[in-house]
Every structure is written in C-alpha cells, then in structure tokens.
C-alpha cells in the first residue's frame, strides 16, 4: 500500500500513485490529482494578492485626491521659499494637481540625470558618443547602453558608502543588443538569468567580441575601469537595476 501524501493531509484509504481519496478534514474532498490541486490553490492565492494590490492602488489614489489641498499648500510653501522648480510651480495652477506636477518634475530630473563620475552633461555626452561610435565600429550598431551600479545610485550596493569613497568606483555599463548577445553565445560566453544576459565580461571575452580597444579607450577617458555586461534588451537591463540610459 503506497500513500502519496506530501502535505500530510488525512487520506481515508490508500491508493497508489498521485491520486488519493480524502475525508475532507483539510478542505480537500473526493479523489483528485494532488499536484493539480496544489497548482489551483497557488493560482487562487496569486489572484487574491493581485486583487489586493489593485484595490490598494485605488485607495492610494482616493487618498491623494483627499489630501490634494495639503499637497498644494506644501508645494506653495516650498515655492515661496524658492525650493521648487518651474514645473512644480505649474502645480499651483488650479487645473493641475501639485502631485502630478511634482511627478513630472521628478521625471524631468531622471531624463536629465548624469551618472556620478562625470563633471557635466557635456562630459557624459562625449563619453556616450565614444561608446556608441566604438560599438558601431565593432559591428554592434543596434546596441543601447545604460549605466548601472553606484554611478547611478550614488552609493555602493554592499557597503552603502558614497560613490568613489575609500574605493575607486567603476563604471558598470549594460549593453543591450540582440546581435551582441547572439555573438557572445556563439563564442561560448556563459549566459545567465535564463539566457537574457551574460556574466560580467572578462578581458578575454572583450578580446573575443572585438571590444577590448573600446573598453581600454573608455577606461582611459573616464579615469576609471569600465565593466560591461550584455543584455538581450534594454528593458531587461533596466528592470534588473537602477539605470541611466546613454543618450
């Protein structure tokens, strides 16, 4: 007599295999496939969680509307003290909620952000031009680059120390390119995360991919090492870590 009883529920009679009758003491009635039942339970739990998340969002929206006057007052106060941008000032207009204008302001901040390690937007753009030119010359014109790591967050992930304090902070750059990923795969460079990215490229990987000279030029130009990782798409890369896309 063989019981298949991974959850410890109370079976009335013994039946071999994954099918098993039950007395209903743990909410499971009749003879069913145990694994299928568990999957259905997991799906139910997932949909219940999603429903809670959805209603949580609605509650937050209602809250933001109710507290909009307070938000307006805080924004007005900030602007009176000179601590707001022209975009946030737009939020003082009666037709545009301040929270919306502040959000637009945040997005504008992100769009004009430059990674730590560059003294100006011009420096960042010059670096970006070299990077894109080098990738095109190497045959990867479809590649889109994005900075990641402490040059984006401003702090080291492991220690929380600021960028470049006590240790030299490198530039970690994601290269999103189906062509580059396919070439890496051809060369036997190990893929990770289910095949959507490589490991960080080693010096011999760079040599094989024809990117050694570019890495050296960029490192010399930036005054710090440049590390590359290849991703299949930009979306994959930015979903993995905070990123600043190279314009």
């Amino acid at each position, binding site marked *: 007599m063989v019981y298949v009883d991974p959850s410890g529920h109370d079976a009335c009679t013994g039946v071999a295999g994954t099918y098993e009758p039950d007395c209903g003491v743990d909410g499971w009635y009749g003879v069913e496939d145990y694994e299928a039942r568990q999957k259905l339970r997991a799906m139910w739990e997932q949909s219940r969680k999603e429903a809670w998340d959805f209603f949580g969002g609605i509650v937050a929206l209602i809250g933001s509307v109710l507290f909009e006057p307070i938000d307006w007052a805080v924004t007005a106060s900030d602007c009176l003290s000179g601590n707001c941008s022209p975009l946030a000032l737009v939020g003082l207009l009666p037709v545009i909620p301040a929270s919306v204008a502040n959000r637009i302001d945040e997005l504008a901040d992100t769009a004009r952000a430059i990674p730590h390690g560059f003294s100006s937007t011009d420096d960042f753009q010059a670096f970006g031009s070299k990077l894109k030119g080098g990738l095109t010359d190497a045959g990867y014109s479809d590649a889109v680059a994005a900075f990641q790591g402490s040059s984006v967050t401003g702090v080291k992930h492991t220690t929380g120390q600021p960028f470049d304090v006590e240790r030299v902070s*490198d530039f970690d750059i994601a290269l999103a390119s189906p062509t580059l990923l396919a070439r890496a795969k051809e060369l036997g460079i190990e893929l990770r995360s289910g095949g959507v990215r490589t490991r960080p490229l080693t010096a011999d990987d760079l040599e094989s991919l024809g990117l050694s000279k570019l890495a050296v030029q960029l490192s010399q130009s930036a005054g710090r090492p440049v590390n590359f990782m290849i991703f299949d798409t930009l979306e994959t890369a930015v979903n993995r870590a905070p990123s600043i896309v190279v314009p």
Partner: protein
Amino acid sequence: MQSYDLYGLYSDDLDSLAGIIGQVLGITFIPHDSSYRGGAYYRFGTPGQEELILQRNYDEIDQEVVESEFGAYPFLLYVGPTNRSREIRERLMTQMKAKATLLRHKVF
C-alpha cells in the same frame, strides 16, 4: 601573444587574500567597487596593459556564482592580458599551494 588566466582561490576573506597575493606577486592591489564584480574587489594594472582582478565568485544580480563551472571557489583571480602567465602561475602554485588553482588558460 597575450594570455588570459583564471584562478580559483580559497580564503577566509577578500582583504587578507589581496594582501597575500600582493606579497606573492610583488604587487599592490587597489581597492575598487563594482556591482558587476560582487561589490568590493581589488584590481592591479593599467587598462590595455597587464591587469589582475581579484573578486568574489558572486553575481549580485541573480545572487549566484559568477563562474558556475567553478562554484566551489569563493574567490577568483583574473589575470590578463599578461606576457608573464607562466611566472605568475609558478609563483602562485609554489607559494599558495592548494589555496590557488589554475582554472582556465587562454592565449590570443
């Protein structure tokens, strides 16, 4: 002809390992930080010339080992490009014995 070697290393911690390898090879590692290299790591050399990189065998993105073929080694030493692959290997093998193993050797 330039060589690119990978060593697997055993040690209690990265900082002391950097000191030991530095003594064995007569170099001074510079402390670096990279999210792609497991956070804190050490580097010696100049881009385009000889470079040595000492890091954890740890990938922060997926929280798994970087070199999956060599997951038993907690630390990795990437040597390359270099023209003195043999000299470095002999020094590490002789002075670090079982704590260092050559895992990969490529020549371009």
